[in-house]
């Protein structure tokens, strides 16, 4: 619990009881009867760990303590961790009220610990601020190695800290001219008491009436030195020589420039001395205030001539609280756990656009709530990424692409009714399904509306983040797997056709078969409840079949058509090992993917099937895939042998998203990929191969294939609905070697 200036930030850990859908195979020895489902679905309670961070004004300290008290009832907690100036000030009150011992944690240690945590765990945590750009926030890729970096914490004073590793950091400098100077001096000069009001004054002022500029001394620019006439030669220089009244706005602006420039200059001097290029800014002076982020950014640009970018953090306000908590709980073992931001429980970055939401802007702060869910596994980069540091999963950044943003937001809004219906239908026997589904609708609708105004609220807005937010919201209202029954039914139906499909493939010539396999893969991928166009068809015509899908497919040449190159490759030696990121349940996985996999296995290629750890739409989950694989193995000797000889491996991806982030994968998957010397990666489906990873560069051959089941997107790519993308890529190096 760090207690800085006027806000208290509280971090607590909870275990959340969640409903999760489980699948369990029936006893296979029992005789199968017609109409019996393939496996059993049950909804169980599962306990997951969650970190909550909330903040409120100090005036509500008593309410805050009551809140903590209520939440401490059944715990063994004896000690509360506190940091920040208030940890000293409110120690007695806290100890008396809660009957807990207050452990004062070192402020800087907590801050750094928190900073490491968010940088490591939250994609798009850091951003560059560009006031006049189309999108004010330019989010940075998560760099696999976050160290070393410089943290400039601008509280009442300034601390400059060099962070070299998880435990190694050093305060290399500081300055007494900081947020307190702006506030204190500003209050004296303008008789304005509140920090926020001072910033508002500043944003309206003209500093040139107070500051002495280069042109005031030289009459113009001093161009031989590259000093333009508008540069400040002497802050407040005019108030020393001019005998006149200055407006509050102008003085506040001049003061803001003076302090921001000074901090920027010192930051640059320290960055240069220690040869650091990643410089993060935090502290109450920064905390989401566009005015200060702008002046600091300007100053850093000026003093480093653009060599260093000022970086800001989305969750900057919580670093101390996160750190204080982690320090007490030792929950942050990066070798054991990963954390993901829960979009449902987190409020986003505030709007800064002046014509929007003045109420929100008036509240100073990056956000009010943050929830982080713990995953019991370590997430790592796919070892086959060509350049992990420049890898961006998402194909289109909706934060920057207003047209695409408008489309997708509307698209998700329009699809909401269907999702609600699906959610209710998935729980016919559970209480209050309709009410919960309605709450889900409200919550997701609200998120979409927020995103319409503040696309940057959770980092870069992408189709992936929209999909993930929907999943988080569904979970929040205990709809862990609305598609469980649909998936079950589809899997069931598709399994019955498996042998028939394999047999008809066997009859084809080698070359015909290769094409049929690819076509099957694509046709299977048409079956997707995630895409609105398909869910409409499936809803109205359940008999829509595999053959029908094949007929719907675009004729060659496809929108992206590398089939000839792929065929040529198949004439060569077999791949050593193929990693296949699978997509949907039912026809897709059973009639599309498995025959293709079977062919690879026959060629002598080992196969790793990577599927989602948790449910998302109708995507096949790892536990479902295990049952399906067993059933297929029972029918097919190739699959059976491959399983037995460990040539076919099932792994979970670590994800519960309909999209795919290759920089956050289960560590076990990465290990297998390396052990097997994987030399081919197949990524299937719109979510994984189009919305994400379309431009991902890998070290080995890759196949990205999908059917565009969205006419808007198809048009954007220059095609029509059901256009086919078949992208076969060979990394530059091995291509050269071949020639």
């Amino acid at each position: 619990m760090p207690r800085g200036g006027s806000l208290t930030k509280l971090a607590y850990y909870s275990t959340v009881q969640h409903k999760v859908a489980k699948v369990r195979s029936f006893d296979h020895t029992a005789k199968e009867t017609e109409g019996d489902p393939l496996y059993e679905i049950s909804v169980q309670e599962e306990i997951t760990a969650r970190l909550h961070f909330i903040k409120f004004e100090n005036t509500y300290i008593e309410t805050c303590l009551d809140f903590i008290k209520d939440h401490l009832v059944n715990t063994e907690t004896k000690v509360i961790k506190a940091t920040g100036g208030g940890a000293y000030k409110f120690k007695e009150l806290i100890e008396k009220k809660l009957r807990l011992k207050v452990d004062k944690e070192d402020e800087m240690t907590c801050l750094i610990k928190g900073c490491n945590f968010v940088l490591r765990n939250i994609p798009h945590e850091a951003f560059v601020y560009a006031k006049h750009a189309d999108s004010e926030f330019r989010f940075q890729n998560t760099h696999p190695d976050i160290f070393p970096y410089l943290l400039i914490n601008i509280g009442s004073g300034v601390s400059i800290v060099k962070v070299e590793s998880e435990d190694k950091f050093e305060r290399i400098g500081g300055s007494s001219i900081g947020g307190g100077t702006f506030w204190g001096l500003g209050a004296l000069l303008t008789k304005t008491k509140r920090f926020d009001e001072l910033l508002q004054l500043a944003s309206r002022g003209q500093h040139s009436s107070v500051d002495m500029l280069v042109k005031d001394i030289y009459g113009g620019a001093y161009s031989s030195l590259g000093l333009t006439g508008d540069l400040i030669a002497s802050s407040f220089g005019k108030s020393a020589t001019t005998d006149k009244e200055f407006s509050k706005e102008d003085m506040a602006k001049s003061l803001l420039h003076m302090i921001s420039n000074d901090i920027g200059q010192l930051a640059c001097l320290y960055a240069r001395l220690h040869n650091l290029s990643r410089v993060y800014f935090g502290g109450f002076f920064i905390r989401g205030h566009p005015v200060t982020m702008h002046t600091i950014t300007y100053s850093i640009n000026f003093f480093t001539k653009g060599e260093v970018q000022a970086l800001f953090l989305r969750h900057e306000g919580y670093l101390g609280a996160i750190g204080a908590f982690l320090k007490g709980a030792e929950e942050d073992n990066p070798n054991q756990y990963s954390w993901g931001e829960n979009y449902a429980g987190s409020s986003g970055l505030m709007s800064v656009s002046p014509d929007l939401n003045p109420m929100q802007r008036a509240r100073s702060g990056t956000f009010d709530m943050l929830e982080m869910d713990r995953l019991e596994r370590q997430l790592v980069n796919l070892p086959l990424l060509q350049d992990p540091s420049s890898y961006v999963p998402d194909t289109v950044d909706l934060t920057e692409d207003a047209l695409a943003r408008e489309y997708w937001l509307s698209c998700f809004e329009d699809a909401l009714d269907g999702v609600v219906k699906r959610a209710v239908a998935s729980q016919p026997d559970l209480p209050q399904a309709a009410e919960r589904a309605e709450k889900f609708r409200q919550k997701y609708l609200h998120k979409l509306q927020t995103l319409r105004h503040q696309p940057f609220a959770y980092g870069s807005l992408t189709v992936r983040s929209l999909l993930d937010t929907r999943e988080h919201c569904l979970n929040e209202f205990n709809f862990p797997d609305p598609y469980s029954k649909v998936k079950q039914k589809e899997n069931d139906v598709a399994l019955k056709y498996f042998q028939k499909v394999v047999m008809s493939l066997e009859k084809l010539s080698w070359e015909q078969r290769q094409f049929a396999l690819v076509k099957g893969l694509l046709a299977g991928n048409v079956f997707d409840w995630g895409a609105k166009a398909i869910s409409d068809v499936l809803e109205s015509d359940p008999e829509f079949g595999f053959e029908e899908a094949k007929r719907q497919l675009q004729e060659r040449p496809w929108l992206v058509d590398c089939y000839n190159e792929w065929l040529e490759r198949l004439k060569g030696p077999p791949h050593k090992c193929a990693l296949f990121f699978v997509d949907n349940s039912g026809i897709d996985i059973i009639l599309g993917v498995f025959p293709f996999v079977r062919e690879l296995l026959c060629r002598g290629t080992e196969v790793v099937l990577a599927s989602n750890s948790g449910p998302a739409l109708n995507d096949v989950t790892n536990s479902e895939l295990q049952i399906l694989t067993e059933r297929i193995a029972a029918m097919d000797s190739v699959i059976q042998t491959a399983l037995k000889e460990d040539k076919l491996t099932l792994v979970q991806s670590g994800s519960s998203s309909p999209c795919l982030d290759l920089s956050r994968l289960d560590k076990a998957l990465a290990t297998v990929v390396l052990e097997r010397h994987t030399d081919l990666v197949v990524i299937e489906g719109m979510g994984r191969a189009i919305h994400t990873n379309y431009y991902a560069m890998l070290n080995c051959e890759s196949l990205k294939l999908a059917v565009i089941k969205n006419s808007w997107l198809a048009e954007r790519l220059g095609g029509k609905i059901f256009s086919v993308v078949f992208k076969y890529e060979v990394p530059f190096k091995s291509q050269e070697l071949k020639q």
Partner: protein
Amino acid sequence: MDKGKCALEPKSAAVHYANGLQNGFCSPQRSSGSSGGSAAAGPSVAGLGCSSPGSSCSCSGSSGGGGHGCFESLHHHVLQEQQHNGSPAKRSRLRRRTESVRKNRPPFPWFGMDIGGTLVKLVYFEPKDTPAEEEQEEVENLKSIRKYLTSNVAYGNTGVRDVHLELKELSICGRRGSLHFIRFPTQAMHSFIQMGRDKNFSSLHTTLCATGGGAYKFEEDFRTMADLQLLKLDELDCLIQGLLYVDSVGFNGHPECYFFENPSDPESCVKWPCCLDNPFPMLLVNIGSGVSILAVYSKDDYKRVTGTSLGGGTFLGLCCLLTGCETFEEALEMAAKGDSTNVDKLVKDIYGGDYERFGLQGSAVASSFGHMMSKEKRDSISKEDLARATLVTITNNIGSIARMCAVNEKIDRVVFVGNFLRINTISTKLLAYAMDFWSKGQLKALFLEHEGYFGAVGAFLELLKSSDDPRDDP
């Protein structure tokens, strides 16, 4: 007065410094030195600040570092004149004039001017070896200028002659006399130009050497209002040349430079004179309205490292706004009586004592003006406290930036100049302390008695050089 003798008289100081001069200024004339230095300065500078008296160095290519032919030939002249010494009475006015030109001496009066953002600094050379009959022939307005400047210590409401800084018994270009130091606010510049017109200054056909931003800003006014042509000079070139010159001639027999012994202990901290025997490299911090920081590697090789807009102008500007004072003197007087700890938040105010984890003393300032966030505290402090806090804040900040630059540039000698330091021992001692304490004794802060006048002196030296023909060094 027998000038030859005088100049040769073993007045220890004169001889010593003449030698210094020789060393310092006798490199071949019109070298490409200045452009070299400037080129280095140009692109590598990162600073918004500008120095006060205007800003920055120019790479004007004019002048610059080269030697001063005039001084270069000082001994030469002296010897010559000694030989001709016998017949001064025979010289006609015309002859003297031509001789003056032949000897590469500009006609009187000799001025150097530095027009900064806040203050104009003027140096004036008063020849004291003028023979009586020459004095009689002296044009009237030349005489009146000399009388006006040397018989007053204040000019108008705001002009001041810093009598205590006068450099006496200087031998320059074969003439001996005093260098006077005069300052007035830049705001009075137009009155000054008008005076030049009224006194018909243009009839003297002297070159007016000017540096500082005002040389550019007021050039047009000089021309149109007073028919005077300015020789515009780069302010950082002038600053360095002026500084090296004054250091080399010394301060009337005493060293120009000083430092503080025991800077970390207020009880035993004492000012101590010293010589800049081997001044390079040095970090030169010029604190005027704003601040320029230069790394100086030789007399004509330097670069502007950076600058800050938090300088003397900021101190005075904020003081005026916060306390209602009107002059620098007034502001400093208030500051001397105030206590900044009533205004600033110290480390101990936040942590109850030292912040040991980072080795921060409890008495260190954590947040300048930090107490002023609270209304109660705002209501309880005095104007004197505010003035002191402003002074301490600005000074510490300059110290901090200077120290970082010194470390980045790997220079351990930091020379502070500029009019912000005038009658300002609070700041000089604080800078000395800050350099010593934060560098753990690695850095040394040095100060100069003529703190704000080096730019003007540098411009003055250019005047002497400007009429000089290229000539071989004997």
